[in-house]
């Protein structure tokens, strides 16, 4: 099977244009991570320098890996069922567009703003910790390996969240339900990030590499799996 880059790009460009025209979509995506990050930040700012010893070796900032899991979930869950509800799905499905191309274009369109928002929030948090937290606390929190892990795992976590959202979207008949389910489905990933941040799970380099490879494979498999769920007949007629 050969994929057409032009068709994937057409779907992606269309989606990005729609985001640009309706700013509320991206605006709504920003709210959640901001709410998600403010309470721990306030706690960090209130920590005295003496707390830095307890923070040594902890991976507190990996808590933010919950952001790429949460941000794209609702957007991805809307992707297919939303088009269906608007009546725009049928014309698209009458073109030579393959299911894989359609979903890849949609997934990239969810991934791009999610990455942008996640990285912007990370940058804002790092800057805020650097400026507002006690010096010793900032030095204990801002570890290069942790920041690197954050950068590398963000697209992988977002990708997984997107495929779960898309799977829900292809099988759902109501966009609101799909978006709620998509958000709920991203919570286990948020929970894993929280367990790492609270030192319940202590990732070593080996675990990180293994988990990274696993996520890459899982994303690839999920793309194929979700593609097989996209059934033209069911989406058009609501039967089957």
């Amino acid at each position: 099977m050969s994929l057409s880059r032009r068709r994937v790009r057409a779907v992606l460009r269309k989606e990005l244009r729609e985001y640009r025209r309706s700013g509320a979509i991206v605006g709504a995506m920003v709210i959640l991570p901001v709410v998600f990050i403010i309470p721990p930040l306030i706690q960090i700012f209130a920590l005295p320098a003496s707390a830095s010893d307890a923070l040594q070796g902890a991976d507190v900032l990996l808590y933010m890996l919950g952001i790429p899991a949460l941000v794209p979930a609702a957007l991805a869950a809307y992707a297919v069922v939303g088009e269906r509800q608007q009546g725009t799905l049928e014309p698209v499905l009458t073109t030579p567009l393959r299911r894989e191309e359609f979903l890849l274009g949609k997934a990239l369109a969810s991934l791009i703003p999610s990455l942008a928002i996640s990285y912007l929030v990370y940058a804002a948090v790092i800057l805020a910790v650097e400026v507002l937290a006690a010096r010793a606390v900032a030095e204990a929190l801002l570890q290069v390996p942790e920041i690197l892990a954050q950068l590398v795992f963000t697209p992988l976590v977002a990708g997984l969240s997107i495929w779960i959202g898309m799977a829900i979207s292809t099988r759902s008949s109501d966009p609101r339900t799909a978006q709620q389910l998509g958000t709920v489905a991203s919570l286990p990933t948020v929970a894993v990030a929280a367990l790492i941040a609270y030192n319940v799970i202590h990732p070593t380099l080996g675990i990180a590499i293994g988990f990274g490879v696993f996520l890459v494979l899982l994303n690839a498999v999920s793309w194929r799996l979700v593609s097989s769920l996209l059934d033209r007949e069911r989406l058009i007629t609501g039967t089957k």
Partner: protein
Amino acid sequence: MGTDSKSGPALSVDDLSKRFGDRVAFHDVSFEIGYGEIFGFLGPNGAGKTTTVRTLGTLIAPTSGSATVAGIPLTIDNGIEIRQRIAIMPESPGLYLHLTVLENLECFADLYEAPDPKERIGRALQAVKLSDRAHDACGTLSKGLRQRVALARALLSDPQVLFLDEPTSGLDPSATRDVHELITALGRSGVTIFLTTHRLEEAERLCDRVAILNTTLRMLGRPADLRDRLFAKALTVRTVAELPEPGEVFAGLPAVDGWRHDALDTYVLTVSDTRVAAPAVTRALVAAGADVLSISESHHSLEDVYLELIDEENKNQP
């Protein structure tokens, strides 16, 4: 796999059926359509017209039967190749309302991988007379204009077979005339048009042949042939005054099979051949000393054919 040649029929449908569980959408439908033919597909609501279009457009799979679309056998594996050669304009335009007309068309030109998309888009916009609205957001357009954008979108791929589902729904008379001219021009250029419509006068004016579907195919043929098949030919005679002995005037005339008194001064004659019967009737009336106002051939429209068929079916239903 099919070929690029246009030697065979553009659409060939053989005993095609589609069921959704216990519900029959359409059953045992068979027909053939040639390249460049404008084919009307008529039927009441729920007759299976849209499902037939979706099946032939590879959106849904038939339950049984076979078909060839644009020279390619209708199978799941051939879906993409078929969709490269056809275009479907659904009843609802389904445009991206936040995007401009141009952006909508750019998206679909890329989905069809149209060569020279700018030229294609320009041509399609010109065909539907929307070049001056290219930069307007689709959400700001009227229903009729949206319909025209959807038609432009369907033209982007230069399709061999174009399925149009109620293409003039919501259009004003002037826009309707433009779409009719476009359909006729497309037919002349060799594009096969599969036109689903409720507007019977539209089908009569545009279509080379029509099919009437009500789950099964009820009739198929040229509109004139359908009329002849369903209705006896008739002459309507109007005189200044009532004829004293109409039976004596009309009896035994060549090609006249029967007559009835329709109104005070109007008689309807059932005839086998109007070209033979009309002169004979005229001569007989003059010989009888009648003052003739008019002798005309009775015309039945496609609407009459359609209503006759549907009414007949409704009567036959338990």
